[in-house]
């Protein structure tokens, strides 16, 4: 006999399938069986229908398609035999679901079976209906089910009740029909019927407001029932772990919850029983805890009763100390919901919750940490943070990230005083610096710079921390920045607080720190770049160590990373050749305004944040220094307390240009090429503006500084406009900035003289110098004016190092081309010409204005002349 014919018994087939060693083998067996079943079905073989469906169910459970058996199920259902009906319904429930259209065909059979005399068959039908009926079937058969709700047999009643649940879920409109019978079920004595009745009512109330009203009237009865169950003596049939029918308890509590929500009177009725259940239920077994959990949920959901709420939260607190993970987990979940209702009560359990943060189970730790975060307030922030930081040392790597982030937020939000903030942050950095996000340590630096009386303390603390935890990258960065800024305070032991241990740090120790930071193999680009700047600062603050610092800096000259190479070469140059400007270059940073910083940080570009790292640009230029307050603003793009509390980089630019046009005293470069013959600057100039078109180095520097997010050295301000362009460094700001400073535009449009002609003007005239402006506009571009400036020397001396600079208000943009030379022969025997281009965004409404400054050497004297041009022709 073919072992795979439909003659095999179910058992044998199962055995055969289990004996298969590989998936392919199993597939082969299944295929053969399916084929046998299919042919058996086709032959309409009655004897084995039962077995076939059983086999099909098994095959279905293994995951193979079995659609061909669906019709067979229908036939079985229609049969008159109980066993066949049974297996037919079973097959129906397994092989089909409500979305199949075949299901509709069953409706008639179901209807007949629901009216069958045999209550077992009725049970079968109800079961099938309850498990998979579709909406149409529900509608068709609802009256039958309604009738059966009042059937004499309790088994039928309970099945009908559950069936009704499904019906009202599928067709909520039918809910009204079930309200009365459902309410009647609530008075049952039989537990099975009672529990199903309760469930039906719960679902009815969720679906229909009318039902809710009706059931509320039955609350009294329900409370009594719950009381009976709670107080009932030992009933072996329903006993679980010493409690009689905990499931009924729970379902009743849930129904009471639904009824009590939003209705104070109803809630009142339940208070007693809730209190009783909450206090008298045994907690050593899961069943008891399940009841308590439901009870707590109910108490928290119904209308407020202070005493009960406290009781509920105390129960949760007890749960937290339970050994069972599940119970701790659900308690933490509930507490998170409870915290919105009653924070005070939850605070009392703070200690236990903090213990849970240290739990061995990962999900409990996470929940507990979130809960702790919600619990923090000003009064408990200090002890809480202390505990959390202690735990940070012991926690797992995966958890450290979360924990660090939360600790940092807590510290930032609630810190009562700056010194505490700095202390805690230093601890976090020492422990888990690598997990700290950029915004956090940027904020720390802002706070440090604001706490001017704590500068000494901070830098010493950082020095100490560096000795122990140099592997934490963020700590190294902050340390390097502070040592750079406040190195002198460190070495001279300025501002020692009482709580500090004495410590002597020599200059070379401080330089050691930065050297380690640069040389360490794990230091990344940001750290190294910051170290280079710090070294520059230190070379100014510690002149005696200048040589050593220079050596360190030089080592990076050949770095393959452009940023480092550039910095190294430039700083080296500053140290070597520009002593006179160095100290002013790296003066102490102005205090960063916290409020603007926070506001800006909320929606700012990275560059503005990072600019806090750069030194300010108060650079003198070797020229005499008239008061330059607005000028400082002009250049001080890096400083965050720039005058206008503007929050975008582009605004800096506006400030730059819109500022009061007082003499641009000591600064080299809003406009103008810097062809100063000083050899030092030449080097830099070469460096930065190597080939024509020189616009490209500007772009490079711009882009590189944007990429690395660190502002470039103040050095560039010395030589060329590119410095300012890097300062602005926001993409939006960059473009107009570049245009503004781009004195290197190769194609001078002046030669295009095909537009309206304007009269030339004498822009400036003094006893020694005359400047003439010739205008032209390109046709079709009325906003742009090309100006050719001619400088004539009216004195008998030759002028050398001739530099022309100009500044314009906000609504204008100015471009300067290189001048034809920077030596002006005497006596008007020659002249220098320089082309300018002005773009007037308010063309037609406002006319041009310009302030000028001319610097030159005459008879080895530095001379400075200034003037304002306000006689531009109208219409430019």
């Amino acid at each position, binding site marked *: 006999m073919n072992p795979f014919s439909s003659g095999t018994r179910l058992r044998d087939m199962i055995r055969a399938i289990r004996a298969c060693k590989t998936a392919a083998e199993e597939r082969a067996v299944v295929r053969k069986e399916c084929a046998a079943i299919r042919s058996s079905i086709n032959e309409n073989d009655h004897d084995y229908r039962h077995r076939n469906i059983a086999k099909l*169910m098994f095959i279905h459970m293994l995951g193979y398609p079995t659609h061909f058996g669906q019709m067979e199920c229908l036939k079985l259902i229609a049969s008159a035999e109980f066993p066949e009906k*049974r297996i037919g319904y079973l097959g129906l429930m397994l092989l089909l*679901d409500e979305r199949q259209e075949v299901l509709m065909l069953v409706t008639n059979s179901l209807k007949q079976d629901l009216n069958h005399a045999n209550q*077992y068959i009725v049970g079968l039908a109800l079961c099938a209906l309850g*498990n998979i009926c579709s909406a149409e079937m529900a509608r068709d058969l609802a009256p039958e089910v309604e009738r059966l709700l009042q059937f004499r047999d309790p088994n039928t009643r309970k099945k009908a009740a559950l069936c009704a649940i499904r019906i009202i879920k599928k067709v909520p409109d039918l809910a009204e029909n079930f309200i009365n019978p459902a309410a009647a079920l609530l008075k049952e004595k039989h537990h099975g019927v009672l*529990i199903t009745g309760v469930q039906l009512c719960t679902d009815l109330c969720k679906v229909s407001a009318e039902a809710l009203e009706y059931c509320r009237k039955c609350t009294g009865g329900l409370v009594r029932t719950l009381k009976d169950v709670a107080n009932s003596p030992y009933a072996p049939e329903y006993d679980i772990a010493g409690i009689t*029918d905990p499931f009924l308890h729970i379902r009743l509590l849930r129904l009471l919850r639904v009824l009590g929500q939003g209705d104070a009177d109803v809630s009142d009725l339940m208070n007693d029983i809730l209190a009783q259940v909450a206090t008298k239920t045994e907690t050593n077994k899961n069943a008891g805890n399940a009841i308590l959990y*439901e009870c707590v949920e109910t108490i928290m959901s119904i209308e407020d009763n202070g005493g009960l709420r406290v009781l509920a939260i105390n129960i949760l607190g007890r749960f937290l100390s339970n050994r069972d993970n599940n119970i701790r987990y659900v308690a933490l979940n509930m507490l998170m919901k409870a915290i919105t209702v009653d924070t005070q009560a939850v605070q009392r359990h703070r200690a236990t919750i903090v213990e849970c943060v240290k739990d061995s189970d990962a999900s409990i730790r996470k929940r507990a940490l979130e809960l702790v975060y919600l619990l923090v307030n000003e009064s408990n922030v200090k002890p809480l943070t202390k505990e959390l930081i202690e735990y940070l040392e012991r926690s797992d790597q995966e958890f450290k990230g979360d924990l660090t982030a939360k600790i940092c937020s807590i510290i930032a939000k609630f810190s009562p005083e700056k010194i505490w903030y700095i202390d805690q942050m230093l601890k976090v950095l020492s422990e888990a610096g690598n997990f700290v996000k950029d915004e956090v340590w940027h904020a720390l630096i802002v706070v440090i710079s604001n706490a001017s009386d704590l500068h000494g303390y901070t830098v010493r603390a950082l020095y100490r921390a560096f000795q122990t935890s140099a592997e934490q990258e963020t700590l190294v960065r902050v340390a390097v920045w502070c040592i750079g800024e406040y190195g002198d305070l460190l070495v001279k032991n300025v501002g020692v607080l009482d709580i500090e241990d004495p410590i002597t740090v020599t200059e070379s120790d401080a330089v050691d720190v930065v050297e380690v930071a640069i040389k360490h193999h794990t230091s990344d680009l940001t750290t190294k770049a910051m170290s280079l700047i710090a070294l520059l600062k230190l070379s100014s603050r510690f002149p005696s160590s200048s040589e050593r610092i220079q050596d360190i800096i030089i080592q990076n000259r050949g770095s393959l990373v452009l940023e480092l190479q550039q910095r190294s070469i430039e700083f080296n140059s500053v140290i070597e050749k520009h002593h006179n400007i160095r100290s002013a270059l790296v003066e102490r940073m102005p205090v960063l305004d916290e409020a603007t910083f926070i506001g800006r940080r909320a929606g700012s570009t990275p560059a503005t944040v990072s600019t806090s790292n750069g030194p300010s640009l108060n650079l003198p230029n070797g020229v005499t220094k008239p008061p330059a307050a607005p000028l400082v603003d002009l250049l001080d793009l890096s400083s965050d307390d720039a005058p206008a509390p503007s929050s975008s980089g582009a605004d800096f630019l506006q400030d730059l240009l819109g500022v009061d046009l007082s003499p641009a005293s000591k600064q080299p470069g809003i406009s103008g090429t810097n062809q100063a013959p000083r050899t030092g600057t030449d080097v830099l100039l070469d460096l930065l503006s190597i080939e024509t078109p020189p616009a490209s180095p500007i772009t490079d520097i711009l882009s590189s500084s944007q990429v690395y997010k660190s502002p470039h050295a103040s050095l560039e301000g010395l030589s060329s406009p590119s410095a300012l362009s890097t300062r602005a460094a926001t993409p939006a700001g960059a473009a107009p900035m570049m245009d503004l400073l781009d004195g290197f535009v190769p194609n001078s449009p002046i030669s295009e003289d095909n537009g309206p002609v304007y009269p030339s003007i004498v822009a400036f005239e003094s006893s020694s110098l005359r400047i003439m402006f010739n205008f032209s506009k390109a046709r079709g571009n009325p906003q742009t004016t090309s100006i050719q400036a001619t400088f004539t020397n009216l004195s008998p001396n030759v002028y050398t190092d001739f530099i022309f600079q100009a500044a314009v208000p906000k609504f204008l943009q100015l471009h300067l081309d290189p001048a034809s030379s920077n030596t002006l022969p005497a006596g008007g025997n020659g002249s220098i010409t320089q082309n300018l281009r002005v773009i007037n965004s308010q063309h037609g409404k406002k006319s041009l204005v310009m302030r000028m400054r001319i610097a030159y050497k005459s008879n080895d004297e530095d001379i400075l002349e200034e003037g304002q041009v306000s006689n531009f022709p109208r219409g430019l």
Partner: protein
Amino acid sequence: MIRFILLQNRQGKTRLAKYYVPLEDSEKHKVEYEFRTHKVIYRRYAGLFFSLCVDITDNELAYLECIHLFVEILDHFFSNVCELDLVFNFHKVYLILDEFILAGELQETSKKAIIERMGELEKLE
């Protein structure tokens, strides 16, 4: 409400699967423990995992008890049940389950009542 019940052994073979909400066939064969609107509660008995997928608002501890009750019923019915009993008598397991849970809700909480009922049904076979 229970959405589905799953019995699986340690190799992931499904010994019993009962769905109270329709799921795509592909979904049925995926084992997921992260749901958005519902959660999975499971308990391990020897080599078998009994999993219940319930609504997110349901009482987890209660369903743990529910699983335990089911296991006790099976134990009683098969007299010291083992995994093989469940494999070879899966259709009976389904019938027991249908007496215990209907439409995703608990039908009967008394072990004795369910066993008696199964006895009656067996007599009709």
